[in-house]
Structures are given as structure tokens and as C-alpha cells.
């Protein structure tokens, strides 16, 4: 790929890196004072998360920003990652284009080996101060501490001081502290926003942010680390001709077939032969001898041969449940009324790189309803904060007519409006960014398509929710009839005619025709107390199971007025023989959860047809619970 990074690599000897950097600050994300701070934090946090995940450690990251002078800030990022061996520290922080990820096809935040050294250089250029690095690996009792600058002419680190220090209470980890020119702002493009969004898609991380002495903690919502990603060989589908030709030229394989089988992923011997045959090229020839014409033919041939999709284990999607947890964890202050079940699409391939799209959508509550929807964009779990206009995510959103899903949108295109937050995550072994600052995803048709599909899936859920809400509204009106008005009608008419008040059971079931579930939860002395009322306003006796999901694995059922059938990740109660117009109640108590979580626990029901169910969802079929057969004739 002819990326700027590569061009940069080629020209290293001809121009000084410092010069180039000065002139191209914007490419690296340092084009404004506010942005400079966000970028500095981002490069540090990205690296911390990457290294923790690679080492299988639950990240615990602390970001501290303090204003030390006018437009001058001291920024530090500390992690509990594996640490960096002493000999590597200078290069990691003091040499551009030095990194472990550039030559690897794998999903990671870092790609180019520019990130953190660019921060060091920016700090040094704007304040003249070196960066302090401290790192400790598990094997050593002491931490290394160094002051580093970057020799911009030679692109080599200058180590100003080196010290061995005791790092108390730290088994392993890395800390760097740099002083840079910048501006600390709040709002959409702030460090806070970046960290908050990072927390959403990294629910396994605990992130502490100290801003001029004020501390905010984004708590860990799960103990589950993202699946480890493996480095993979390139996938032939969509690979660029130049890259393919270069690979052939450099290959040591003796035969074309084995080149195809061994240097690419997912090509079997038979498939390789099919490709050669389709291209009309001798399968025994040396790959080194392929000319450009033959390369072209081979690539064309791959289009007509069925090749297995790339393996997905090089990707690590966040997955539906954790996206929801992450969103809830960070957005609960808004008390959103609806979280569409997040969608994780199957992996696809763009230019030989597998990618995978995930979409989430949150609706209502206290989210502002008068402006355009808010979009949270992510690439490999990193929030994209800038260049929204030129991003594939925006293209995909704008080409959907959101009106059919219940949102306002002028003329059926452009940004929809309403109390909505949309989350889009693109994970890939190489995310096609529009620039090296990794700010926007390029408008590649397959990617835009995948995002659009994911969005539509979530949007359909939104529409279903809005329909249900409408239905619920109707039912709650009926409920008012049944609970408040009908008894009064009965009483009044009876008193006027001078007879006994009639029983209303049959009239009530006639009017309602549903099983109504009403859940109330209250916070009481550090525990959540809940009451679920189940009212059978149908003409049949009902048998059903009632489920609720625990917000966290450590959440405990303290008390329950009815013996639960199951008590694990979820709780199940069985209700037997609930007669028409009769009500049943379940009282319970939860501990180990947050006050804000009590609105989020949904009730699920198995055994009642969806059309007769109000106030609860039918039990999804992916819970591993065997669903009841429902025979519903009324």
C-alpha cells in the first residue's frame, strides 16, 4: 500500500523527520491546540490498551492532565500493561516509525509506529521539554525511568537521563509524562469525550481521568477481555496488483500453487489449482518469474473461483452483549428508554483485509431530542473524534431513509434527527483511514454497505420498539379504563338502580385481552428492590416463565417472594395456573449493582404469545433456555 507512512519511510534519508513533521502536523493529529491534547492522550491510551490486551491483562489506565503554564499542559498516561524492556524504551518513545505492528496483519489500535513518538516530538518542539518514561516488566524488581527527546535530524532517540527506581504497588506497567502546548476544552472534541467513548467500546477497561485535580472514573463493566487476535496472512480477494506482484517477486516458493497456498490465507491446494487453471497459467511455474500481465490474470481469476472468506479469528469484535454493557455503563445518566440489541455483522473483506462492522443504537430518555442524532464512531475500539463529514460511517447513515424507522429526517436523506445515539465500530486488520491521523474511515463501497446493513438492522429494532411503545400507550389507556373507570361505572350504575355492584372480571378481560406485566424497582439501602406484577387479562388460564437478566455477574439475588427456578446470569420464576383476571406478584431484592442500573433490567416472558404480552419481551431464543410451545387461538 502506497500510504504516507510508506512514502515517509522511503524518504527518511533525504529529508529530516522533524522538518517533515513540522510541516505535516495535521497528518498526525496536532493541527490545533485542543486537538493536540486529545491526540497526546489518545496515542498513550491506545498503546496501553493494545499492550494490555496482547498480554492478557485487564487494563487499568490513568490519565492525568494539569495546566502548568498558559497553554502548556503536563500530560501523563499510566497503565498496568506488560511494560517495555529497558533496551526498547528509547526507540519506542524516541524514534518515529518504530513499532511492533506495522509488519503484521492483525487487528490492533496501533498500526504505524508513529503514535507515541510523535507525542514526544510534539512536546519537545512546542515546549522544549523532554518526556519522562517509566516502565517496569514483571521479571524485574525495579522500574526503569528515562528522560527522552528525539533527534529530529537523525530520527534517533536522545536519552538525557537513565535511572532505576522503585515503583511501589506496581507489578508491571508503563507511564509516560510529557509537557505540550495545548488547550483543554470541554465538549464534543474533548479529552473527556474521547475517554468516555473509549470506555464504551472497552468495557473491560477501567479508566481514571484526573483533570486539574478533578477525578472521573469510568468503571469496568465486564471482566471479559476481548478475544486475542492473531496475525494472519493476507487474503487474496481485493488485494492490490502492486502488492501481489511484490509478494510474488519476494517469494521463496518454488511453485505458483504453493505460493498461493502458503503466502495467502484460506486458499486450499485445490483452490490454488483452480485459480491457475482459470487464469491459464502453469501452476508449476516459479512465482518469482510471474510478470505483471500474469499477476493481473491470476487476480482476475480469483473473482471466478470460490475462495473461503478470511478467517475471523484475526478480528476481535466487541460483540452484542458487551456493546450494550458498555453503552449502558456510560450512558445510564441519560436513562435511555431503549437499547437496540447491538449488531455484529459477519466479517467481510476489503482489499484483502478482513473487516467487521458493529452497530448499536440507543433511543430516548433524557437524550436531547431536538438536534441531529449523535454518532459515536470507532475503528478497532478507538473513538474517531474528527472529520465526521468525510467518514464512511456518515455516508452510510445519510443514505438511509430514517423516516421509515420512525425518526425525523428532512427529505429522507442527510442526518436524521431525534433522541438517538448511534454507535458504529469497524474492526479490521487494516482499517482504511483517510489519513495517518486515523480520523476517518475511507468511503470504500463494501464497508459503507456493511455499515448500512448493520444500521438498518438496529433501525428495524427501533421501529419495533416505537410500535410497541405506541401499543403500550394504548394498553395503558385501557388499563385506566379497567382500573379506574369501570369500577366507578359499576358502582354508580348499581347505586342508581339500587342493586349490588356487579363483578367486573369478564368485562375486564374482554377489554384488555393481554397479560400485563408491570415492573417497579426502587433503590433502598444499597440494594434494588423490585416488584413484578403479572395480571392475566385474557380469558384463558396462563402458565408462564418469567426471566430477568442480572446487570452484572456479581449481582446477587438476596430475597425472592417466590422460589426461583434458576438463579445464575439470569433469574427464572415459574408461574403456574394464573386464572383470568387474576394478578400474581413477585417481590425480589438485588445486591451488588449500581443505583443507575435499576431501570435497565428487562423482564422476559416465555409461554405467552407476543401479541398478548404487554410490559415484557418474549424470551429471546439465544438464552439457551428451551422455549415453551405456545398454542394461541384467542
Amino acid at each position: 500500500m502506497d500510504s504516507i507512512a510508506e512514502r515517509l519511510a522511503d524518504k527518511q534519508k533525504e529529508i529530516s523527520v522533524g522538518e517533515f513533521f513540522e510541516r505535516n502536523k495535521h497528518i498526525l493529529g496536532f493541527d490545533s491546540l485542543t486537538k493536540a491534547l486529545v491526540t497526546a492522550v489518545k496515542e498513550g491510551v491506545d498503546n496501553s490498551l493494545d499492550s494490555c490486551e496482547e498480554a492478557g491483562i485487564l487494563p487499568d489506565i490513568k490519565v492525568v492532565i494539569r495546566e502548568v503554564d498558559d497553554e502548556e499542559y503536563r500530560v501523563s498516561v499510566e497503565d498496568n500493561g506488560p511494560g517495555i524492556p529497558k533496551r526498547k524504551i528509547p526507540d519506542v518513545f524516541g524514534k518515529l516509525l518504530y513499532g511492533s505492528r506495522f509488519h503484521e496483519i492483525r487487528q490492533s489500535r496501533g498500526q504505524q509506529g508513529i503514535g507515541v513518538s510523535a507525542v514526544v516530538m510534539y512536546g519537545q518542539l512546542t515546549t522544549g521539554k523532554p518526556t519522562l518514561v517509566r516502565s517496569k516488566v514483571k521479571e524485574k524488581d525495579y522500574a526503569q525511568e528515562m528522560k527522552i527527546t528525539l533527534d529530529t535530524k537523525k530520527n534517533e532517540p536522545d536519552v538525557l537521563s537513565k535511572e532505576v527506581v522503585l515503583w511501589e504497588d506496581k507489578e508491571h506497567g508503563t507511564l509516560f509524562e510529557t509537557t505540550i502546548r495545548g488547550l483543554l476544552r470541554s465538549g464534543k472534541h474533548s479529552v473527556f469525550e474521547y475517554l468516555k467513548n473509549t470506555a464504551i467500546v472497552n468495557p473491560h477497561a477501567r479508566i481514571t481521568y484526573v483533570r486539574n485535580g478533578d477525578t472521573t472514573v469510568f468503571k469496568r463493566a465486564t471482566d471479559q477481555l476481548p478475544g486475542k487476535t492473531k496475525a494472519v496472512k493476507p487474503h487474496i480477494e481485493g488485494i492490490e496488483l502492486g502488492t501481489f506482484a511484490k509478494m510474488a517477486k519476494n517469494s521463496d516458493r518454488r511453485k505458483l500453487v504453493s505460493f498461493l497456498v502458503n503466502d495467502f490465507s484460506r486458499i486450499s491446494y485445490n483452490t490454488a489449482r483452480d485459480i491457475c487453471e482459470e487464469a491459464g497459467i502453469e501452476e508449476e511455474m516459479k512465482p518469482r518469474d510471474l510478470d505483471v500481465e500474469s499477476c493481473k490474470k491470476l487476480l482476475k481469476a480469483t473473482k471466478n473461483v470460490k475462495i473461503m472468506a478470511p478467517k475471523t479469528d484475526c478480528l476481535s469484535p466487541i460483540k452484542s452483549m458487551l456493546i450494550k454493557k458498555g453503552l449502558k455503563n456510560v450512558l445510564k445518566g441519560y436513562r435511555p428508554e431503549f437499547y437496540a440489541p447491538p449488531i455484529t455483522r459477519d466479517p467481510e473483506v476489503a482489499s484483502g483485509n478482513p473487516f467487521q462492522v458493529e452497530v448499536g443504537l440507543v433511543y430516548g430518555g433524557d437524550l436531547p431530542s431536538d438536534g441531529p442524532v449523535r454518532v459515536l464512531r470507532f475503528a478497532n475500539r478507538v473513538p474517531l473524534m474528527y472529520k465526521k463529514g468525510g467518514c464512511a460511517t456518515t455516508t452510510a447513515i445519510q443514505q438511509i431513509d430514517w423516516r421509515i424507522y420512525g425518526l425525523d429526517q428532512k427529505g429522507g436523506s442527510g442526518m436524521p434527527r431525534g433522541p438517538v445515539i448511534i454507535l458504529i465500530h469497524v474492526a479490521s486488520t487494516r482499517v482504511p483511514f483517510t489519513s495517518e491521523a486515523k480520523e476517518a474511515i475511507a468511503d470504500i463501497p463494501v464497508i459503507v454497505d456493511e455499515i448500512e446493513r448493520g444500521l438498518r438492522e438496529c433501525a428495524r429494532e427501533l421501529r419495533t420498539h416505537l410500535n410497541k411503545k405506541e401499543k403500550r400507550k394504548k394498553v395503558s389507556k385501557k388499563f385506566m379504563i379497567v382500573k379506574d373507570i369501570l369500577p366507578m361505572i359499576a358502582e354508580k350504575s348499581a347505586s342508581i338502580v339500587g342493586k349490588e355492584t356487579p363483578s367486573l372480571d369478564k368485562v375486564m378481560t374482554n377489554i384488555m385481552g393481554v397479560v400485563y406485566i408491570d415492573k417497579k424497582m426502587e433503590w433502598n439501602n444499597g440494594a434494588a428492590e423490585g416488584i413484578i406484577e403479572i395480571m392475566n387479562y385474557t380469558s384463558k388460564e396462563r402458565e408462564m416463565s418469567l426471566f430477568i437478566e442480572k446487570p452484572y455477574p456479581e449481582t446477587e439475588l438476596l430475597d425472592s417472594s417466590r422460589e426461583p427456578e434458576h438463579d445464575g446470569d439470569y433469574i427464572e420464576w415459574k408461574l403456574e395456573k394464573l386464572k383470568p383476571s387474576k394478578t400474581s406478584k413477585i417481590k425480589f431484592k438485588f445486591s451488588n449493582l449500581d443505583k443507575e442500573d435499576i431501570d435497565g433490567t428487562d423482564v422476559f416472558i416465555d409461554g405467552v404469545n407476543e401479541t398478548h404480552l404487554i410490559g415484557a419481551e418474549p424470551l429471546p431464543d439465544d438464552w439457551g433456555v428451551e422455549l415453551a410451545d405456545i398454542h394461541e387461538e384467542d
Partner: protein
Amino acid sequence: MKERHKNALRELEDIAEDIYDQLIEGNIPNMRIPTRTKNNIEFDDHQGVWKYGKSKSTRSAKKLKGARMILRTLYMLEFIRDMIGEDKSSTLREMYYISESWEKGKFNRQSESNRLAEDMEIVTDCLREDFKLRPEEDGARVIGDITVEEKNRKGEIRNINCRDDVGDSGYTIPYNVEEDKIKFTDTNVDFLIAIETGGMFDRLVENGFDEQANCLLVHLKGQPARSTRRMIKRLNEEEGIPVVVFTDGDPWSFRIFSSVAYGAIKSAHLSEYLATPGAEYIGITASDIMNYDLPTDKLTKTDRKALRQELEDPRFDTQFWRDEIETMLEIDKKAEQQALAKYGLDYVTDVYLPEKLEEAGLM
């Protein structure tokens, strides 16, 4: 207890009984009443007025609105029963305020409670006076040479000549104008003019038109109250006094005329009591606007809408009205009756009315 109240009570209790029985049978209670829209009024050849037709609407407790209405009906019914029992009466407005304590049965607006009272009249075939309910509106004014015998609140009989025994503001029509309250002892007028606005009524009084044309002037005060319409009806029917209606020239005035002459949609169940089928229109028409070259206003959007509705209203389905309404839509103008003052204060009594009345064969 008077017979008419006793009868009303029986009718009301039937409503409650019906609802009670539906509940006992396990059915969702409902009430059926004639649909009160212009699509459901029919011309009664016999009486020459427009009444409700056969189409009925159901008020069912299945819907929140219907359930509320049924509950309100029961509350109102109980309230009326108590009033009859205690020999009290109340105004419609008082009843509206009393409903404050009817919990889920309370009204949000007085128009709602008035309307329900009308519904009850329809269902029971009674008058709201039978329910001991009366309107709070003060009656309209009358000036002219007729003498009424009115029984006042002390039970004394008084004879009042509506020209000589009253001041310039005339005789005020009481809310009850039935036989038991009012008798006409002497009527010396050739016809009766019902006038829409107070300004024009006062103009005709000042110009002495009642004496000049030997007629009775009746102020309608916009959309006329029941008692005003009933009074006009009685004078026409019992005393044989021809009736003409003098209004502004706009869609709303046409409706005022039609409620006097044909019966209002809202009270079509009472048309035979209230409507005066022979009444003639001498108000401003679209043709007058052109013929007399009157000062005008442009029609508003709601004016145009009202006119178009009138074109679909069976009461206006005559050649005269179709032409006038269509012309008004065409010229897109309306005019007030007082616009005649363009030609001087006496123009209306010297020229306009004599011309119109002559056309009507009354002068």
C-alpha cells in the same frame, strides 16, 4: 314533583339500568345515541324542519373516551336525580363546576358538559328544563308593540308592552318562554325582524324602525339562545307573525339564519320546538355586496372552509343558497350589516330594509 320531572327521572334511570345490565352480562358497556353531525340530519316534511336521522353512534367503554363519557353520564344522571328529589335547579355552568368532584368523570370544558346534557335530552326525549337545568346566558332583547303576560319569580302576573313599558334596551327574553311563564296578550305588529348584531339592533331602535314599519325587533346576539329561538317560533306559530332574519354577510351569519329557520345541528332533536320554517333571509348576501357596492373584508381561510362545508350541508341545498355561497367564494369577500352606513345612518331604514322587505312582500 311535577309530572314532567317524574317522567324525566324514569327515562334517566332506564339509562343506568341498561348499563348495569350490560355489566351483569359481562359485556363491555355501551350507549347508543344519534350521530350529531350534518351528515345525519334529515328534513322532516311534516314539520318543515331538519332533525337527526337514523344513524347512531356508539359510546363504548372499550375506548377511554367512551368509558369516561359513560361514567360522566352516570354522574350527571345522579346529580339530576338528586336535584329533582330536592326540588332544586342549577345552571349548566353550575353543573360544570359541580363536576369538579366527579373524579374520573369530571369535565375539562363546559362545552363538554353542555353537550352531554343535550345528549341526555336526545336519549330520553326530554328537555333540559325537565332535568332542572337551565342556561346561564341572559336572554336577548325585544322592542315593538306586543304585550306579554309574564309570571315573575314571586308568582305575580305582569303585563308588559314591549314598546311602551320598557327602556331603550327593550324587553329581555327570560330563559323559560313556555306557556307557564309567558303568554302573548296583544300583538300589533305586521312582522318580526331578528337582527344579528347589537349595533344594528340599536340603529333600528334609534331610527324608530319598529314604529316606521310596524314590526317587532328581536336581537339575536350572534348564535341565538334556545329561548330566543323558542320565542320567535311561538310568535310565528301562535300569533301568525312572519319572521325575517337580518344578518351580516358571511358564512357564520348564514348559519345563524339556518338555526333560526331550519334548526341547528347541535340541537336538531329540538328543531320542532325551536325552528321557524317560514323565516326569510334578508341579511347581506354576496349579490348585495355587489349591488350596493358595500365595503368588504377578504374571506379568511376558515371562512372559505365554512362556506365549502355549507355547500355540503343539506340545509343549504337550495338554488338561492348555492348561488349566494358560490358567488361569495368567487368574489372572495364578506361584509357586515353595518357596512350599509357607508351611505349614511338612515340608509338601512330608508332604503335597504324597505327594498328587502318589499321583495319579501312585507312592505
